[in-house]
């Protein structure tokens, strides 16, 4: 029952996030000034930057849950970890596309093998790999353990994505701070950051429920499937 009420609550978090996204994007597109050198093209940052932040937040949540999942071995922590990775991978994919769309008119290229771009692509592939790994393991407990360990290993790339632009030379610029960004641009950036975060938390919750339902079906189907296998073996 507690779970069901939590679900109701998350729905409002998601709806509030979508509403914030509309407000933030409106301010970003129509109220905030254009950028001095990039003009209106720079307005893509109001989705690009929040997408990047929240993708990394999702992976960080997944990392924490991976440790919990190994420690406590509960179905919920495994399902929630999977939801966080799925949401992270979707945002990560969007992030790469938005970056390419921004890069072409400003840098002059869709893509280059600079550290920020490369580590972001690696991050996408690593976590997509964790999801692929899950689909190969039939035993629920083993699947939880393996994917938790894989998540911990994949997570090494996340701080790397964040810090690489400071540690090495790159095409991508280093992080901006409020002092390097016009105050009127900071407002929609902040609003959209929370907007995407709320939508992501709601998505994680929904994916967790799906994963739990999938596991439950697996468990109820198991005796049936074993019976079928036995039948095939006897035939």
């Amino acid at each position, binding site marked *: 029952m507690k779970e069901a009420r939590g679900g109701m609550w998350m729905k409002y978090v998601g709806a509030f996030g979508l509403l914030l996204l509309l407000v933030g994007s409106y301010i970003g597109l129509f109220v905030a000034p254009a950028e001095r050198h990039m003009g209106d093209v720079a307005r893509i940052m109001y989705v690009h930057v929040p997408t990047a932040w929240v993708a990394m937040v999702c992976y960080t949540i997944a990392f924490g849950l991976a440790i919990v999942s190994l420690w406590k071995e509960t179905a919920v922590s495994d399902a929630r970890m999977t939801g966080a990775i799925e949401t992270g991978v979707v945002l990560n994919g969007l992030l790469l596309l938005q970056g390419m769309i921004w890069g072409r*008119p400003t840098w002059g290229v869709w893509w280059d093998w600079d550290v920020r771009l490369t580590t972001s692509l690696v991050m996408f592939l690593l976590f997509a790999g964790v999801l692929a790994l899950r689909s190969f393991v039939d035993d629920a407990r083993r699947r939880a353990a393996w994917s938790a360990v894989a998540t911990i290993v994949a997570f090494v790339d996340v701080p790397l994505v964040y810090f690489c632009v400071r*540690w090495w030379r790159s095409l991508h610029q280093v*992080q901006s701070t409020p002092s390097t960004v016009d105050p009127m641009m900071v407002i929609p950036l902040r609003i959209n950051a929370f907007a995407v975060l709320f939508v992501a938390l709601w998505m994680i919750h929904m994916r967790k429920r799906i994963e739990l339902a999938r596991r439950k079906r697996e468990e109820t189907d198991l005796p049936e499937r074993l019976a079928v296998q036995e039948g095939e073996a006897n035939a």
Partner: protein
Amino acid sequence: MSNERKRRRLFIIAAAAVAAATLGYLASGGIGENLVYYWSPSELEAAGDEAIGASIRLGGLVAPGSIERGGDGLTLKFAVTDGECEVPVYASAVPPAMFREGIGVVVEGTMRDDGTFETRRLMVKHDNEYTAPAEGDSVDVEKMMQSMQFERSES
């Protein structure tokens, strides 16, 4: 605590240790010296003849007053500087609209034996400052998007 649980916890600790060690290694500059996205003009000059014919990226600022555009609109000469050295660059590429004096660029190509850097791939860097247009500034987005229409001439 059962043996299995003990093993599992050992597993977590091992995985976390591997992760932390990898990150620590990277942070302490273990591969930092081998991971060079671009060379500065000074480094390129220090490399001397070794740079000739090698496939490299050169990064720096476009030296003020150095831009010469070719009549066909497809070639471009300018110098890349890091404040100490200047390398003349010959580019057969259409630069993005952001290209201007004093901006950061990364060019991919090779050093010719006459001391000019030849490139077909010209990338413009943007710094982390985002400011509103100052009085009198105008960004021609039309022109900015137009620079995307050209493809590099391979001839």
